[in-house]
């Protein structure tokens, strides 16, 4: 039983990282209907920046916070400088643009920091706590707590603040938003900035569990896409639940089903997604527009 709880908590922690990247994808998708294939590489790049700061002597916590801030502005700059010129264009064009950014950031990171593996320190102490008789790692609990805090903050932003309401409005109906005085371009920039910061957070959370190299986010991005598709690409709640389902099911299957092991465990969440999307093509929490003819 103790083993089971440990595996589930570990799965939720892994799933929380997927959820953070999935949330970033959803943020951008909702406001611009762009699927940002470069989300993972943006996060990898940010993680290298944090690593660079840390190696340069900046305390880890400060390095991470600085990186989140830098990523926020870099995300806004990417929207303003690059994406803005293609918004409202053909879907395929935007796919190519974000894929191009993927390759560019990947190569750029390799050029700056090299291609070898590097260790990345964890934000949390390498320790465990005993809760209800079960020993759980502080890191796993910490990751889940960070994700919950992020979700709480995003909920506050979107549900309780004026700028959050304006961001939702700009995503829903840009023309009407401009007519009430919302500068839609600023809202899209903000969305990209938030997404970049979220991605960076996922990067520094996942890096200690893997190794930091230019392919850090490769598989995370795929799991995050799966999480977003499972939850519904337009639903923030869906991204989180989707991330958790994937994290838990892959960890459980990898632990308890012998022939699956760590090589085939990706098949389990993908199987679940396949079934869910057959029954509900818009995902678990995806909405079809509320409208009355």
């Amino acid at each position: 039983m103790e083993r089971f709880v440990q595996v589930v908590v570990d799965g939720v922690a892994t799933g929380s990282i997927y959820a953070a990247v999935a949330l970033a994808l959803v943020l951008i998708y909702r406001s611009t209907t762009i699927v940002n294939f470069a989300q993972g590489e943006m996060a990898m790049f940010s993680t290298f920046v944090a690593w660079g700061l840390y190696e340069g002597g900046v305390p880890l916590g400060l390095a991470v916070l600085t990186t989140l801030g830098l990523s926020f502005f870099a995300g806004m700059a990417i929207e303003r400088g690059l994406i803005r010129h293609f918004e409202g264009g053909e879907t395929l064009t935007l796919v190519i643009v974000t894929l191009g950014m993927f390759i560019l950031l990947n190569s750029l990171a390799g050029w700056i920091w090299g291609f070898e593996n590097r260790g990345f320190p964890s934000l949390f102490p390498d320790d465990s706590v005993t809760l209800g008789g079960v020993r759980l790692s502080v890191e796993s609990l910490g990751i889940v707590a960070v994700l919950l805090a992020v979700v709480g903050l995003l909920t506050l932003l979107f549900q309780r603040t004026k700028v959050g309401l304006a961001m939702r409005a700009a995503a829903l109906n840009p023309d009407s938003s401009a007519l009430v005085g919302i500068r839609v371009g600023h809202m899209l920039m903000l969305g990209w900035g938030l997404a970049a910061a979220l991605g960076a957070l996922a990067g520094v959370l996942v890096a200690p569990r893997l190794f930091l190299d230019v392919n850090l986010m490769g598989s995370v991005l795929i799991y995050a896409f799966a999480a977003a598709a499972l939850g519904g690409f337009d639903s923030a709640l869906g991204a989180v639940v989707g991330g958790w389902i994937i994290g838990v099911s892959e960890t459980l299957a990898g632990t308890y089903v012998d022939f699956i092991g760590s090589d085939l465990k990706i098949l389990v969440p993908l199987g679940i997604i396949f079934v869910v999307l057959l029954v509900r093509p818009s995902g678990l929490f995806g909405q079809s527009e509320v409208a009355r003819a």
Partner: protein
Amino acid sequence: MSLLEVEGLYASYGQVGVLQGIDFSVERGQKVAMLGPNGAGKTTVLRALSGMVRTSGRADFDGGSLLRHPTADIARRGVAHVPEGRGTFASLSVTENLKLGAYARRDAAGVREDLERCYGWFPRLRERDRQPAGSLSGGEQQMLAVARALMSRPRLLMLDEPSLGLAPIVTRELFGVLGEICAEHAMTVLLVEQNARLALDFADHAYVLESGRIALSGEADRVKSDDEVRRSYLGY
């Protein structure tokens, strides 16, 4: 000086010219109707003033030029545009829609007051304040669109075909409330309407557009009582 003074306004969608140089003006507190058949360019007049189409010419609003500014900036200067088809935020609640109307305002207390006032004018909106706007009936959505525009405390209210798709009884109700609000607040209105009879009853002054040009203009009462004009331009 007029609140809005338009001179030689041209507007085009891509290569297609829609407005061929029109002149008109709206005085403070005046209700002006822009009439004409489908495709005459009525909607384009409003879209041009809101910066949503390519324009040339002059449009002075309260001493400054309106043209060639971003739509959001024009809205912030006090031009509230209720677009054709209402443009409500379908999945946001009625209250959220109304709050968005006041997005550019900084006086939170005044906004709360105006929210109450809007619910007073349109009690059906208060009953549905938490429902998504997309679940309202066509008439309720039009009321919401008008109320949202009023939430900005506009200096010029521009309405695009508010009667479109509404039952006659709903239209009468809407224009009844609009008339009261305008009288109470000396609101300046630029109304685009295909229903000429309705618009002429509401407005003080009317312009008739034909193929992107002003074909005639005059006081609403005079236009209404001129049988010749009515038959040849307004078709009733």
